[in-house]
């Protein structure tokens, strides 16, 4: 795997990799993807679905309800005047 590719993947995934890690993961992914090339021999399926069982038309009615106190959730987060604090935007 090209250094450029692994660097790009790490950037998209928001991971900082050292030079050593970059090389190690590139090698591992190479090994793994090479062995996965057996998939190319599998017949191209006509249909696919995102679950192994059919899950169809499961809907929730439009009724507002909150069974957990939002204060308990806020307590988990760092808030200021009710707002969740976050990092710089630019």
């Amino acid at each position, binding site marked *: 795997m090209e250094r450029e590719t692994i660097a790009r993947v790490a950037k*998209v995934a*928001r991971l900082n990799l050292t030079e050593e890690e970059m090389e190690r993961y590139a090698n591992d992914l190479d090994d793994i993807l090479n062995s996965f090339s057996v998939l190319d021999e599998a017949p191209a399926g006509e249909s696919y*679905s*995102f*679950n192994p069982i*059919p*899950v*169809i*038309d*499961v*809907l*929730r*009615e*439009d*009724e*507002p*309800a*909150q*069974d*957990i106190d*939002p204060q308990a*959730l*806020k307590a988990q*987060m760092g*808030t*200021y*005047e*009710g*707002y*969740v*604090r*976050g*990092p*710089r*935007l*630019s």
Partner: protein
Amino acid sequence: MKIGLEMHFQLPTRSKLFCSCPTAPAEPNHNVCPVCLGYPGSRPALNRKALEAGLSIARFLDCKIEERVWFSRKTYFYPDLPKNFQITQYESPLGTDGHFDLNGRRIGIWRVHLEEDPGRIKRVGRSGEEIAFVDYNRSGIPLVEIVTAPDLTSPEEARALIDQLVTELRSLCGLEAQDEQTVRVDANLSVGEERVEVKNVQGLRNLEKALRFEANRQSKLLAAGKKVVRETRRFDEERKVTTSAREKETEEDYGYIGEPDLGEFRIGEMARNLELKETPLARAKRLVASFGIGEATAKQLVLTSHSLTDLFEELCLHVPPERAVSWTTGPISGNWAVLQDQAKWPDIVRIVKDDSEGLINDTEAKRRILSLAGVQQEAAVEGGDGLGKLISDFIDEHPEVLADYRKNPKAANTVIGHVMKESKGRYSSREVVEGVRKELEKRV
């Protein structure tokens, strides 16, 4: 000039798209739960009402609707996005290849899909170094995204499209009135060959300004023999200019995958079974065709009230359409607050019919209608002054309306709306419209 729009409207539900948190306004981070905060262990469940509203819109826009759809995860990192992925629709929108008739011109609709809104960020701190304060009340609010073909030819037309679309969707599925201000739009615009995307414009006014600026900018570049660069720009609301968005925003790889937590939806059947309400503009068009009345009159009727239009259609069964028009837009709409009671309709029909057949004269007919409404004629006459005062008082208190009216005559609607509401139906809509126009013209 070619303009295409990606519009996002909030769907009128009481609970969010994937959790049951309320959509009503609240203190920051009050309408939240593990699902819309993306807490580990939570998972989404789709709101039936949102799906149905989205499907009615797709059908109303005459879209092609597939038999099955699913949702997708669009992964990108931003502080307002609790899961750092947004659940949206990618390969399988609710509808594709539809259209909307804008003043007789067919505007293509490429797709209609559902997605969740991220949270809302309050920027705090010095310009250029702002940090994010996030309110996740909006996280998971159901949005419908409607994407048009680049069939629009001017900023005014883009604005008109949204204006009319909002009117229609409001009555189709109860879209809220505020949506002209809250509609979020990504627009692409090209004067020459290359197109530029203007992202994340909030509200109709900003949109028109952003598009004007961008059209102007591109025209100047081309006139000077320069090239327009294909890029993403953002609209700066303060300075009223578009600026080039930084590169990183365009290079994100969303890595779409299917959302396995929701399963699939067989929307074909669901869409066919939906009963669509007739929307105002579609109804106006039908009135023009069926009864031969003028387009302006037809619009005035349907925009006043659906039930008034019902009465109009009822009257048309008994009297010539022009008589039905003059009665419904005249004394009947003037006292609509009382006369909308359907128990009174048979009497109204008889009075108008008797008048039309010459059994009674106009004055007597009007007296009977008014007495049906419980109004003494003297009071109604005296009301004339009251109307003028109502109008001029409002304009005195809201000078900005006059300024707006100079640019766009539609600003008159603000005054008309206010007066109709205040007078509680004492005056006919025709009287109010004429009164307001006269007063505004006088002052301009």
